[in-house]
């Protein structure tokens, strides 16, 4: 499909004068609202798919456990021929199920983090509509502090700090990958 030429789009005429209701702030708020709505819709859709996937997974995993129990009850004369192979196969599946249990949890983490992004977009949409706030550096600081207080994971805090320190999106992603690999807290256990 050919790319539209600048200034000739039917929806964006070059010389069109802004209507009275048109304002930069309103356009920004609407666009941020659009992003938030798209994200919400995509999350709702994926929630349903992942819920179904998890039900299927746990069903399969339960069946695998049942097979293990059946294997344990096999008569010795039958088990003697297949025991090593069967046990090895069951152990391999059990290990893979353990990895899947860890992997599924990342969806939960993703949902939580995207929830914070959605809230951030909605908060920003409200913020930009008030020129009295957007002109005040301390109001931006307050907004950033509000967003910072949402974060629950180490990764979110790292990205926030890198971006506030002036890193670009790309540099922030690269820097975060390096620090996270070295300092990930996932799976950390502390008994008090």
């Amino acid at each position: 499909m050919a790319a539209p030429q600048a200034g000739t789009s039917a929806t964006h005429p070059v010389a069109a004068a802004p209507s009275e209701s048109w304002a930069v702030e309103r356009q920004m708020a609407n666009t941020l609202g659009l992003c938030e709505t798209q994200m919400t819709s995509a999350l709702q859709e994926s929630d349903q798919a992942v819920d179904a996937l998890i039900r299927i997974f746990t069903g399969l995993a339960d069946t695998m456990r049942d097979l293990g129990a059946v294997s344990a009850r096999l008569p010795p004369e039958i088990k003697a021929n297949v025991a090593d192979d069967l046990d090895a196969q069951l152990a391999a599946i059990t290990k893979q199920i353990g990895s899947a249990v860890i992997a599924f949890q990342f969806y939960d983490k993703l949902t939580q983090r995207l929830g914070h992004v959605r809230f951030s977009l909605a908060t920003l949409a409200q913020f930009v509509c008030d020129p009295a706030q957007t002109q005040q550096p301390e109001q931006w600081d307050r907004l950033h502090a509000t967003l910072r207080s949402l974060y629950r994971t180490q990764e979110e805090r790292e990205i926030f700090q890198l971006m506030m320190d002036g890193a670009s999106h790309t540099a922030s992603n690269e820097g975060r990958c390096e620090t996270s690999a070295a300092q990930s807290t996932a799976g950390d256990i502390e008994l008090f």
Partner: protein
Amino acid sequence: MSVASPRTILAVDDSASMRQMVRYTLEGAGYKVVQAADGVEALEFARTGTVDLVLTDVNMPRMDGISLVRELRTLHSYKFVPMLVLTTESGQETKQRGKQAGATGWIVKPFNPEQLLATIGRVL
């Protein structure tokens, strides 16, 4: 000969998928699992029933996990029950609040099934 009944664990998380993962892991190790979707639901259960261990998330609607631990510690039957927090929260400040509320330990998500079971085995 009497057969020992399985130990019961109260798993609290607002995410249905997380509850499924926890239930699958614990039942596979022989535990009985009671589930609650937030602190209020867990507390309602705790007022009428007892468990051997509580495993709770932190960030949940209606009542968070740290408030739940604090409330449970005021109940006579939960004074000495181990309470593990399972959360994405890794900040020291929140962890300290959990400790002060009476949590027994802190596990950062995602959990490794074998390590979770080993930790539960240690505190039970």
